[in-house]
């Protein structure tokens, strides 16, 4: 099971966190601080697995972002590397050559995508096409609602002027 997902920049700024295990707010910030220190200090040639507090943390660096996932000791680390890559590829397809800035300004969309890939710390969908389709459907629902709302508010604005 994946206990949490963490995206941190090279400077240690948190871009995305998702917690699938109970951690209080204080514990969360403590964990983030610890892991940032641990992972950002690792050299490039070392392997992508760190042992931490009895768990394993699998991380991979994509450009300026570190994608970290904390798993239990008996999980398959190589598979988690694949899940991380799966996530990044879907982000890439969605944003079109995703970069860190996309994830900063559209963090909520990154969360929506993550929610289509993982629930309760387990993998939900292995097909990138299906995930993309679902996200697109929900986005179009939002677009439609927005259009409706904007037209209504236009009418109201006209009326109340």
């Amino acid at each position, binding site marked *: 099971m994946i206990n949490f997902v963490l995206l941190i920049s090279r400077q240690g700024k*948190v*871009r*995305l*966190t*998702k*917690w*699938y295990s*109970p*951690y*209080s*707010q204080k514990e*969360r*910030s403590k964990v983030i601080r610890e892991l940032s220190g641990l992972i950002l200090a690792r050299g490039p*040639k*070392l*392997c*992508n*697995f760190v*042992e931490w507090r009895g768990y394993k943390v699998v991380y991979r660096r994509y450009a300026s972002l570190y994608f970290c996932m904390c798993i239990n000791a008996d999980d*398959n*680390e*190589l*598979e988690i*590397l*694949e*899940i991380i890559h*799966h996530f990044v590829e879907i982000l890439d397809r969605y944003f079109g050559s995703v970069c860190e800035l996309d994830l*900063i*300004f559209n*963090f*909520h969309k990154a*969360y*929506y995508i993550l*929610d289509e890939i993982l*629930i*309760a710390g*387990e*993998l*939900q*969908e*292995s*097909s*990138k*096409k*299906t995930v993309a389709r*679902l996200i697109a*459907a*929900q986005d179009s*629902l*939002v677009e439609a*609602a*927005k259009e409706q709302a904007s037209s209504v*508010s236009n009418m109201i604005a006209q009326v109340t002027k």
Partner: protein
Amino acid sequence: MNPFSTPTRLRDMIRAIRACKTAAEERAVVRKECAAIRSAISENDQLFRHRNLAKLMFIHMLGYPTHFGQLECLKLIAAVDFPEKRIGYLGLMLLLDERQEVLMLVTNSLKQDLNHSNQYIVGLALCALGNICSAEMARDLAPEVERLLLSRDQNIKKKAALCSIMIIRKVSDLAENLMSPAASLLKEKHHGVLIAGVELCTDLCKVSASVLEYLRKTCIERLIRILKDISNSSYSLEYDIAGIVDPFLHIRVLKLMRILGQGDADSSEYMIDILAQVASKTESKKNAGNAVLYECVETIMGIEATSGLRVLAINILGRFLSNHDNNIRYVALNMLMKAVTIESQAVQRHRTTILERVKDSDASIQKRALDLVFLLVNETNVKPLTKELIDYLEVSDQDFKGDLTAKICSIIDKFSQEKLWYTEQMFKVLCLAGNYVKDDVWHALIVAISNAPYLQGYCVRSLYKVFQTYSDQESLVQVAVWCIGEYAEMLVNNVKVLEMEEPMTVTESDAVDVVEASLKNCSSDITTQSLSLIALLKLSSRFPPTSERIREIIMYHKGSVVLELQQRAIEFNSIIQRHQNIKSSLLERMPVLDEMTYNLKKASSSQANVSADKTSKSNSRASLKLPNGVIHATATTDLDLLDLSSDDNPANTSSSKDYLHDLLGIGLTNTESTDQGIAPSEGTDILMDLLSIGAPTVQNDILISDAVSSNQGIAPATKPSSTIQVMDLLDGKQTNTSISDYQNPVHPSIIAFQSNTLMITFTFTKQADDPKVTQIQATFTNLSSDAYTDFVFQAAVPKAFPIITLEQSRMN
């Protein structure tokens, strides 16, 4: 603020925050935004709730407190439209955690949304519940989720399955209800649903044994078929990753198979074929393939597989070990450590590759490889393995040296069959990494050397040879100095040369030079210098012509600021100057240190030793004067002044010391320290407390004699008398010096007991011809006005000391 102005857009706020140069600026911007959001919330602004919550979430990610927004999430979730619900649920998952009571308020909205007609809204609710759920919520909403498991929509089904996993984690009793729905999920075709279903089954098995049984009976064939399908299918655009069709499904199915097959031979039998197929067919060029292979190997080792299959698995791991990718090597080493217990033969074949990994550049791989090598060592391969490890020790880097040294030492210790090889290897390790060698390791080495008389010459010569080159290795210097002190005449006279040694001439003054060098070396610590001082003293006894020179060297430390060194310097100087007659017997060869008892003591009181070590180093001087129970190898070297010629007597157990101590009531020993198992079994401690010096002895005759004298010898009562003869250390020298003078050979008489009515005095004498026997004359003085009748004197000694009680000699 203009009531008609819209709040800043999300991206504008983000831009503004990013543009801040300092933390103070950022705080100001955030404060302004929070204020705006707070007022919007209190005014119940409907229009921009969506935007405000998004901004709030961003602020939360920056680390600022956002509690005021929590109820807003709830309002958004309760809204009618999809966009609001979407952001509301996201806010819920981000801003709240399980422990908040606010979460309970969501339960009703969740229930309504789970029954919603819009499947995306149902999806949102399932997702939220699956990520953040308390036990009460789980119980309340479990029926809804169960119903949704049977929905026709694939998306809903898979989300419901994963949500059930979360529910089971919170409330494990509900597992049985989900048994059959979970099993039926495995009949699906859709990969997402399959994966979710397999994961649900896995978690159910972990939680409930009855579900495990049920699934074992019904699902194994289905699982095998799934695996076969995806393994054999040629190419699927949608699910292909690096040439493998849906590696995720592969891995999850393999994991479930492992859980079902564990411990059950029948189920395992079914799986063997497909496992062999997957293991041999899967391509291992990319990470995805390796991930599948890794899971496959784990499953093979986890179930009751045939030996052939297991060997196949271990060979796969062996291949992993030579992979370029660090991750694969790491994973392989992990797996091999677990496999070594099951199939050690097969793992042994890969020993050379594993040895290569010890030299890896990645620290965690190095450590794992070293642990694995340690598990693989046995009698046949210990010599080449040790050689390889020691060769690597030379070039390894500092952080790793400590671990490596410790492991090498324990390998050598555990598997050495002959002392010569043991001492050779230990010398090499001391040369290369002496500073990392722990104290008890080289103590053990000294014990071993003292037990191997045929090796002593070889040892002292080898140590002399390497001393110059490796004098910065503290432990090596300490061992060398001790050996040179002890076995100096072997060094100089080339005694007991083994065939392989090259001839070497060492003069007496060379030996003194070496010890002097270690003494003068400014980086030596107190222990080394203390050891050197004693070694010099020993040398002055063994090589009398060097006495004067040695005395000068020792005198140099007379004013040392270190108490230990100062004391030693003064006392040794005094020995050399004034006590030449007893010096040689004082400094004779140390008695053999008993290995077995040393090992036992080491094992049982290693904890005590650790702390004792520290205390004794500082008062090891005191240990000479005041019998200090804390003795171990380093202290031994302090006590070797008081050697006995009884070289061949194995050291006595030190428990005898306690008895003697109590018997004679000498308050010289530290009572608490005697409890510390008297760790060293070097016999020097036995009588130490008696006469403030230690000596080993086994064959002591203890005779207790007492003479009763009473003031008014009125009624001659039968008074048994006995003679105590206690082993005396230094041959019969009677001096009137005090107890604290360690040089005193025979103990002055003591008052063993004194009260208002009785006084018992012991006087000690020794016969010149039999140094092992000491006579103790006990004199009883009746201090009361009454006469004693039926006076019985009994003496008890530890088993080591035979006691002969003689008749009462006389009565006054």
